[in-house]
């Protein structure tokens, strides 16, 4: 019979646990001394802490898709700017796009990058 299945096995343990034991007495005395000298903080404090954490997690969950879109917008803007700079670099001159249009496109790209960066920085600062 497996020791775990032997009923006497567990019964022996139970009987042993009932015998006076100096270790048990010492540990319980120590537990009593801890209880006498160290009180737990009030339940209201723990409840408030849990509430604040729950609220913070809910805000983070709600902001997650916004942050993803901000990062994607920044990446797209950087890629677009790099492409346009490459186009105006003389290697592949644009036959139809005038200088004014290129300048406007570059300015818009810079604005988009700056806007995305500002929003991400502000979100991180407010959530920290």
């Amino acid at each position: 019979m497996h020791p775990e299945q032997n009923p006497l096995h567990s019964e022996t343990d139970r009987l042993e646990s009932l015998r006076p034991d100096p270790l048990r007495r010492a540990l319980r005395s120590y537990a009593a001394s801890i209880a006498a000298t160290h009180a737990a903080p009030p339940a209201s404090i723990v409840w408030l802490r849990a509430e604040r954490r729950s609220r913070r997690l809910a805000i983070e969950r709600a902001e997650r898709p916004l942050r993803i879109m901000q990062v994607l917008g920044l990446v797209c803007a950087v890629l677009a700017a790099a492409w346009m700079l490459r186009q105006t670099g003389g290697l592949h001159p644009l036959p139809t796009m005038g200088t004014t249009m290129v300048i406007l496109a570059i300015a818009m790209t810079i604005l988009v990058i700056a806007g995305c960066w500002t929003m991400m920085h502000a979100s991180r600062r407010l959530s920290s």
Partner: protein
Amino acid sequence: MTPAGEPGRGILARELELQPAEPMAAPMSELEFQRLYDATAGPILGYLVAVSGRRDVADDLLQETYCRLLARPRKASGLDADATRRYLFRIATNLVRDRWRSGETQSFAEPVEAGQAVDLDASIDIRAMLQHLKTRERQLLWLAYVEGMDHAEIAAATGLTRLSVRMLLYRARNKAKLLLHRGETTHAS
């Protein structure tokens, strides 16, 4: 329209703040939590003090234990009082292990207040004994001797198998008795 001074705030985030704070997704009301806390906080705190060896760490872990209980309503829902109590010990045990793995030093550096200890000599003996035991050994001894848990309950609280609990508890018990005897002998001489 973004309020002045709050650039980049998400729309959803602002709406969450404007709405009244929703009650926590917890299976219990604040009153029920108060009752549970009053019934279990003392034993959990004693366990954490004994196992971690530091009262400041024990206070922090105690609050974290209940925060985690409230943060997981599905796990805690439907449990009776005993099962909730075991679940709390399980959470506390895991937190102590995580804290130990993160490198938090464990020491019984804080002396027992002489005017408040139930038995100063006994407390010093026990503290000296616990200091020489491993974290796992302290956990097993406390759950078995102070909380009165059987092997199955200890296994549920620590994540070990019953066979492992039996073996480890046996070794821890012998080691603790030897240390306690040495301490008593030292005091007697």
